[in-house]
């Protein structure tokens, strides 16, 4: 490894200063900081026992229903995680200084009470995991900027770029074919197609007077994600997620209405590797999802679904832009439809969500309380829409055990219904047919499409939608009202 003294030393000092500053920020607690609610006995351990405090906060996060967790515990989880991350960075910086001196023939220093420390293969992944867990589990109140600064500083630092392990990883990436695998999913026949149109903003506003679904072509042509910074390149996505170290929440299982469905927080690289890229794993998952008897151990489908990836990773946010259409004032839900009675607060800004997964992912038939523009940045999806008028033929769920309101989700398994229609028994779940269980469903009117890469679909508020990916797909939804 060829290192010239100056840049390395400078990089170390910059990170060191940042870490020292971050320590001060964490430890000089303002009187009105909600973290004060934890009590002094807890707060005095922020520097010396961050791991213990993360455990303490994690327990408290589970002691309350998610929406009721007192802010002090979310603050504690966040600040203890930052404290832990900074200490880890500082330790590795000091080791780097030692290595540097070792390379130049100076005496080796043994750290930690005489036990020589073997440097972690990827300590950066560990630091990023600590910080991202705090962001995803608590929203990192008051500390989003600080965490983003820390991660950017790490990503940009010379330490990372000179890391020999990093070199090897990037070499490996270039050798492989830099695209997602092609899937072999059959394309459904489209009979009642959603119209395509190229609408200006004014034309769209006119369209909103009587809102119906429409595919807007050429609305995304300027997106870097579709041009110079293509999201269909796995290596590009890895690079934007700090070598794939950033953690993402992944839904495991065929559909969130199925038993055995669960969620996990895993590094972006592991998600891509196990659920998108590895052909053998992807195919076995697709096979497993077709039967009822998948045990916990067998490989299942993974879907990065409904996650605000763009506030977590601002790098990616710069590759897309909010469609102008989302700055119009759309109509409220139709009177007489279920959403008309609900009190949905007005959004100040459109809500962005990422949807990234393999072929075969399913979003079961449901409605959302907002108008939606669903954009395809990678791959294609089959989408079927039912008007709110058809609600009584769609068998909405009720309020489940534990008080969870599932009325926006239909009981009908549309994928199974489609398979039965096509007499494709390999996709039919169980033995009870849709027609028998839900007799009115076949009379419900729908429109459908195959949404291609570069297109976006306008879904009016309250319209039932069923979505199935036909290839590796990366969609972005923009919700507004």
């Amino acid at each position: 490894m060829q290192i010239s003294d100056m840049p390395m030393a400078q990089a170390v000092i910059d990170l060191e200063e940042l870490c020292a500053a971050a320590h001060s920020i964490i430890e000089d607690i303002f009187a009105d900081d909600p973290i004060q609610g934890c009590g002094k006995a807890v707060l005095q351990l922020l520097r010396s026992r961050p791991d213990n405090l993360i455990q303490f906060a994690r327990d408290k996060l589970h002691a309350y229903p998610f929406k009721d967790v007192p802010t002090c515990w979310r603050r504690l989880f966040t600040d203890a995680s930052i404290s832990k991350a900074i200490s880890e960075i500082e330790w590795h910086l000091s080791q780097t200084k030692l290595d540097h001196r070792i390379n130049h023939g100076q005496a080796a220093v043994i750290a930690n009470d005489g036990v020589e420390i073997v440097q972690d293969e990827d300590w950066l992944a560990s630091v990023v995991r600590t910080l991202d867990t705090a962001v995803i589990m608590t929203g990192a109140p008051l500390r989003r900027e600080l965490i983003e600064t820390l991660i950017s500083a790490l990503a940009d630092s010379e330490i990372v770029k000179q890391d020999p392990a990093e070199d090897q990883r990037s070499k490996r990436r270039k050798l492989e074919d830099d695209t997602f695998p092609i899937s072999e999913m059959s394309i459904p026949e489209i009979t009642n197609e959603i119209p395509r149109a190229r609408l200006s903003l004014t034309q769209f506003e006119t369209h909103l007077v009587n809102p119906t679904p429409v595919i807007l072509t050429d609305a995304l042509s300027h997106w870097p994600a579709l041009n110079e910074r293509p999201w269909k390149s796995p290596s590009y996505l890895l690079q934007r997620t700090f070598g794939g170290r950033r953690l993402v929440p992944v839904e495991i299982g065929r559909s969130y209405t199925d038993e055995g469905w669960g969620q996990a927080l895993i590094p972006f690289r592991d998600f891509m590797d196990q659920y998108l890229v590895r052909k053998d794993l992807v195919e076995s998952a697709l096979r497993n999802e077709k039967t009822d008897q998948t045990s916990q151990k067998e490989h299942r489908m993974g879907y990065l679904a409904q996650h605000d990836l763009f506030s977590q990773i601002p790098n990616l946010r710069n590759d897309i832009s909010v469609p102008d259409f989302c700055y119009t004032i759309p109509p409220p839900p139709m009177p007489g439809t279920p959403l008309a009675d609900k009190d949905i607060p007005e959004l100040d800004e459109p809500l962005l969500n990422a949807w990234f997964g393999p072929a075969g992912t399913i979003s079961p038939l449901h409605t959302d309380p907002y108008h939606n523009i669903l954009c395809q940045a990678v791959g294609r999806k089959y989408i079927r829409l039912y008007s709110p008028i058809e609600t009584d033929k769609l068998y909405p769920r009720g309020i489940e055990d534990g008080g969870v309101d599932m009325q926006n989700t239909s009981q009908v398994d549309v994928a199974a219904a489609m398979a039965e229609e096509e007499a494709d028994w390999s996709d039919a779940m169980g033995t009870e047919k849709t027609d028998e269980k839900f007799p009115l469903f076949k009379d419900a009117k729908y429109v459908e499409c195959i949404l291609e890469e570069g297109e976006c679909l306008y879904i009016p508020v309250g319209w039932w939608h069923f979505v199935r990916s036909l290839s590796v797909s990366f969609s972005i939804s923009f919700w507004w009202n």
Partner: protein
Amino acid sequence: MELYACGFNAHNQLTFNETREADPKDIPQLRRLLSAEYIDILFTGWSNLVLDVDHVLKLNGARLDGSSTSPNYSTIQNIQKENAPEKEDVRTIFGDHTGVLGGLNRTGKILIFDPEHSTFKPHNPPGPAASKTHLSIAGNGKVATCYEESYSDPEAPPLSSGYGIRKQSVSHHRSTRTIIHEYLSLDDFLQHHDLGQSGTEEIPALAHKEFILHCSPRQLVANQTAFTFLDDLGNVYTWGDGRHNHLGREITSATPASTPGFVESLGGIPIRKVVSGGWVTAAVSRDRDLYLWGGRPGEGQWIRELPHSPARVDEEGVEEDVALANVDGGVDIVDVAVGDGHVVVLTAEGKLFAAGRGGNGQLGCGGMEFAEAWREMQFEEGDASDKSIVGVFCGPWYTLVLCRIKR
């Protein structure tokens, strides 16, 4: 008597007669802390604890200002009541992760701890208040209290849904019952107007909930989200947050999580003691059997013996609500204690076993992160055979062991 301890010591709660460091180390194996004629343990909080040492109450660990490096562990003065000739001794103490908060005296009055002066002072409720036999604070801040009252009503239908062992009324004119109140916080409780007599509602109570059980109270304990009540006949009732399936019983609309429900699995088994911590509750029967229930789904690691542990469910297929524990080949269990994530048992053979979280040394097995199966606890000097162990107690992340000196 001697007191041994291992585990979390970041507040010097386990440091006695030694220099108190600013950043103290946890204790990985059972260490002798002190000897005295008489020792009892009254409060085991996350950041401090209270012992009765030769009939003087002593507080060790974090202080009001969070500091924990005063040279000697302080003495809690017994409360002085100005007009009372006798001192009103503290019988039980309650608190949370911030420290000691208060106690109950022998006549059931509430005492509030004054950390500045290190004393308990009587609390004056805003209205008539019943004398409480028990008060317990859960990790989510909720408070449960209970008291006993006798009443006369030969036609009274049972108001609880329990089917436990019933007291035969000697005369059907007077019976005894327990009134349980639940509050959303300790502050709520301290500001309430209690109902002196349940049913005479001249002054409304701020109690979040009221439950009536036809029995006498023996124990009321809490963990992070659930309360467990033991009556004098050995029946166990649980209630609290129903989300994690850790109440040791089925949750149905007839037996909801939020109301004390009888633990059917222990029906007919006279339980002598219950202990609770984290998401786990343990019970020891008069026949010296140990029962466990709880555990939080989503945790990476489970004590194997818990009824819903993945290992147990995989093996046995059936999921029970309560598991009969098997320690050291199925020997009798004399005592049990539960912290936030670990369980400690004392067998009839005088051995100590522990399972669960161990990262702070609370298992007495070094820094072992987690023990799925029972591990014998280790002493820094000697072992269990040269000691006469009489009791085990757990703080959230540490363990205390009480011994008589073997002659």
